[in-house]
Every structure is written in structure tokens, then in C-alpha cells.
């Protein structure tokens, strides 16, 4: 963490070298990951990862296949709890209240209700377009039709899908194209107003046009949400993120402002990866 000047002010931390308060590299820290390790049964997949997630910025996680970037992302909402034998060590501290997401004492429902996630493959529910977006609100006990209508429209607009589906909200979500389904999944994740949005290679199953749509969308969402995105596409990370973490064999090799990581990496391994010498 040598390149990171920490100016602590409560949970406020400034990232980046000599970042002035107006710069996009000056941000409050939304999540602090401290010494996180993770085991799939007996196999260790993450080794002592420490990095911050900046509030209202896009943090990209890059690295070759199997490097642990998706495993890392899935720790944030305790997705690994669904399968037996998985184990966490270390802390993921969620600010402002400072709860430790991976502590066994923390109910996994707490991060899941506060953090939204979009997966690699679009996975809409077997319901109508409307009900897909309303799903997260309904399980939070919202029944008021007007509120649901309003939130569904707002989320679909933010996911840049409203104009394409406003006349057929009752149609099945499976009638949509792959790119539209993925934007629907983004709308579904946004509807309950999560504090953080986790994106696990959200464009890897999409064509270039749909990918461009979603990248634009992520750039707009940054104004309101803290976004963590896993991507195998380095150009994508360079285009849309402000901070980047480079993973290799379960370790965080380098973390820093995206521009710096891609132009003047400190580690030779990072250099080799971003120039395509391995990976």
C-alpha cells in the first residue's frame, strides 16, 4: 500500500498520490478488506488480501482465469455460504457502520440485503419483466403498488432498458435478448437501492454493442453507487474503472488508481500481464 496515502477522517480515506479533494482518486472508503483468506473446503483460494473499495467509484478486479478475482467478489455478499465446507478468515469491514461482513457472527442476510450483485450469465427469474425488477422489493415487504410501479420504472430507466420494455412489462423475462436480460438483472439489483453493486464479468456473455451499453451504464451508475467489477477484459477495466486490483494465484499483486496501474505498474508481474506477456 505504498502508493496509497491514507488520510483518515473517521472512515474517510483518500486514495492516490497527492490527490486533491476534487479528483476522482479522492474518495471515501466504503469497504475495507483486511487480511482476507478463503478456502473452498481444504483448498485455499485467497491469501491475505488487503485492499479498500472506494465509495461511488468503480473498482475493477483483473487477473488471469482462476486467480481468485470472482472468489474475492463473492465474499462480499457471502455467496460462498451456499455451499458446504467453505471458510473465510480476515475481515471485510462495511462502512459507515463498520460491520464485518465475513464474521460468522454476521447474518449473511445483512450484506445480501445491502449489496446487489449481477452475474456473468444473465439469470432472470421465471417471471414477468415487471416482477423480476420488483422481486427484491417484494421480499423486503413492500406491497404498495404505486411505490413498486415507481421503483420498477426508475430502476429500468437507470438500467437503460425502460424504453425497450415499457409496453410489455408483463411479458416473460425470457422473451428478451441476452443483452436486455443482463440489463434487466442490473435493474433487478438496483431496485432495492443497494449500497454497493457487485458485477461478476457482466459482459462476458454479450456482444460488443450490448457490452458498450452496459459499460456506459456503469459509468453513469458511478454517481450513485459503489461498484466492484470483475473483468477478464483489461481494456474494459481501463475504460470504466478508477481503481484496479490485479490478482494472481489468489493473491492481490497490486492495487492502485487504474491509470497508474496501467501506465506505471510497480510490479513486474502486473507489467507482464497488462502487456499480454502472460495470462
Amino acid at each position, binding site marked *: 500500500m505504498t502508493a496509497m496515502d491514507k488520510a483518515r477522517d473517521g472512515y474517510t480515506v483518500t486514495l492516490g498520490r497527492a490527490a486533491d479533494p476534487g479528483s476522482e482518486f479522492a474518495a471515501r472508503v466504503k469497504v475495507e478488506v483486511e487480511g482476507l483468506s478463503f478456502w473452498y473446503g481444504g483448498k485455499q483460494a485467497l491469501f491475505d488480501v488487503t485492499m479498500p473499495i472506494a465509495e461511488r467509484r468503480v473498482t475493477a478486479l483483473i487477473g488471469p482465469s482462476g486467480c481468485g478475482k470472482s472468489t474475492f467478489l463473492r465474499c462480499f455478499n457471502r455467496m460462498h455460504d451456499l455451499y458446504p465446507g467453505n471458510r473465510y478468515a480476515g475481515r471485510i469491514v462495511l462502512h459507515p457502520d463498520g460491520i464485518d461482513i465475513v464474521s460468522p457472527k454476521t447474518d449473511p442476510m445483512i450484506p445480501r440485503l445491502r449489496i446487489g450483485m449481477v*452475474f456473468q450469465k444473465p439469470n432472470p427469474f*421465471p417471471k414477468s419483466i415487471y416482477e423480476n425488477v420488483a422481486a427484491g422489493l417484494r*421480499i423486503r415487504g413492500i406491497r404498495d403498488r404505486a411505490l413498486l410501479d415507481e421503483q420498477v420504472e426508475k430502476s429500468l430507466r437507470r438500467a437503460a432498458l425502460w424504453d425497450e420494455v415499457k409496453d410489455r412489462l408483463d411479458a416473460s423475462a425470457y422473451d428478451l435478448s441476452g443483452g436486455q436480460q443482463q440489463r434487466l438483472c442490473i435493474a433487478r439489483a438496483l431496485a*432495492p437501492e443497494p449500497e454497493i453493486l457487485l458485477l461478476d464479468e457482466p459482459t462476458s456473455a454479450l456482444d460488443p454493442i450490448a457490452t458498450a451499453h452496459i459499460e456506459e451504464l456503469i459509468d453513469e451508475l458511478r454517481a450513485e453507487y459503489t461498484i466492484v467489477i470483475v473483468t477478464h477484459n483489461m481494456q474494459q477495466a481501463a475504460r470504466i474503472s478508477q481503481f484496479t486490483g490485479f490478482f494472481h494465484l489468489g493473491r492481490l499483486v497490486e492495487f492502485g488508481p487504474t491509470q497508474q496501474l496501467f501506465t506505471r505498474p510497480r510490479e513486474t508481474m502486473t507489467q507482464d500481464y497488462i502487456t499480454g506477456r502472460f495470462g
Partner: protein
Amino acid sequence: MAVEVAEEIRATGTLAPTAAFLARRRWVDRTMRGLLAVAASLSIFVTLGIVWVLVSESLVFFRHVSLVEFLTDTEWTPLFANPRFGILPLLAGTVTVSAIALLVAIPCGTVLAIYLSEFASYRAREVIKPVLELLAGVPTVVFGYFALLVVTPTLRIFLPDISGFNMLSPGLVMGVMILPYVVSLSEDAMRAVPNSLREGAYALGYTRLQTGLRVVVPAAFSGITAAYLLGMARAVGETMVVAIAAGQNPKFTFNPLEGAATITAYIVQVSLGDVPHGSIGYQSIFAAGLVLFVFTLFFNLVGFILRRRFREVY
């Protein structure tokens, strides 16, 4: 084959397929397709054969008995000196017993399937599934005597008015009997739902129960409907349990505390008895069988329409 191809390549000096090679592949392809078509049509011909026997023999029956009498008369006494031919008593028996069985098997089966697919640990599943399959392996005649000799006396403690032969007891036992089919098929359908859907639900904050009921069950709806239909077909077609425990006295009633004959019980009664071949009593079993056939066909059609209407792709 590989040797021949290698020789051909050596002879022609090229990897491009020769005409003989292509012709041989075409021949194999066409022959296999023909064999598969024969195998597929076999099942259709058997079904058509059954329908033909049922319909043609029933036509003999309907030459003596009008369709109106058959469908509206409330007495079924084909073997009496003064025979009456109303199918309603038998149909009522079949419907009542099957309904009781399904009232047991569908709720219990669905809950058990959700438990096995969404909640049970690997170890619990490894214990429960073989036990259920064991239940499916018990001969139906054993279930029949279990209903008559254990369930009916037990029911009598709570319902003193219940007859020795009644429809409630075989209905309950039949529900347990078809439970493994309903559970097994429903669970298969639920487990076929991709994990990506479950993860999507959990990531939104769904609990396990909400994920099961609001995401997995709707996604597996088509398979679950198939499970219910199979259970229903088994209940409607089941013979032994009802013949033993419900009595064989056709009576037009839906009261589960009374005994009654079902269509299948009547058929087995006549086939085992000394009714002369070609008599009207003998022909009546085909008419009864045809009703059973139409009955199950109708429900299969309903299921087909339901599945098409609620089909979910993932």
C-alpha cells in the same frame, strides 16, 4: 473403418473425402434413422391397438345399452337378473379414492421435494431417498391389506361410523404409495433448476424458503406438473388397494366413510369371475375401461395445456 479410411487416404493421396466414403456414411445414417423410426412408431402402434380393442369391444356393449343410460343412470348392476348400466357409481368411487390419495400425495410430496432439493444436507438426502424408493417397491397387494387390516381399524378409533370397507382408508394408503413418485419427479425437476437462479435469489436477499417457493418451484413448474399427473394416473389406475380395502359394491356416493367399487376394482372383479365371454357383463368391462382411458387422457391433456401455458425456459 479407420484402416479403410487410412488406405483410401494413402491410395488417393488426399484427405478430401472420397465418394465411396461419403456414400457409406449416408447409408449408415439412413439405416439408423429408419431403425429409430420403427422403434418410435412401435409405441404408437401399441397405443392405437389398445384404443382399437377398447373402442370396438365397447361398441358391442353400446349396441345393448344406450350412451345416455350409461352416463346418467346411478345404478351399476350388470351381473344382476335385472341389470342396470350407469357408470356414475364406479366413476364416483374412482374420483373419491383418487382425490383422497392426491390430497395426501401432492402437498406432502411437494413439501418433501422442496426439503430434499433446497434444505436437506447431502447426508439427509442419502438416507431419505433410498427409504422413499423402498416405499415404491412395496407390492400394491401389501398396501391393500395394510389399508384393510391396519388403517381401517385405526380410523375406527376416531371415526366410529366408518364401514369395514371404506374409501378413506385405501385413499390415504394410496396417497402414501404414490408419494415416492411425486417426490422423486418433483425433486428431479427442482434440482434441474440451474444454481445461477438460486444465486440470483440469494444475492437479492431471499431466504432459503423464499428461494424455494418463489424461484425454484415456478422454474420447475413443468416438471412438477408432470409429477402430479403421473401420481394421478397411478391413483386412478390403481386396482389392488381399492379392490381389497374399499369393497366391491358399486354405490353412487362421494362419502369417503362408505365403501364403494372403483372402475378398476370392477374390471378385476369381472375378469376374475365366471362371466361368460361375449355376454353383456363381459362387454361392460371394456366400456368401463374406455371411461378410465378417456378420464386419464383428459387429465393428461389438461396437464399438457398447463405445461405449455406456464413453460419456463432457463
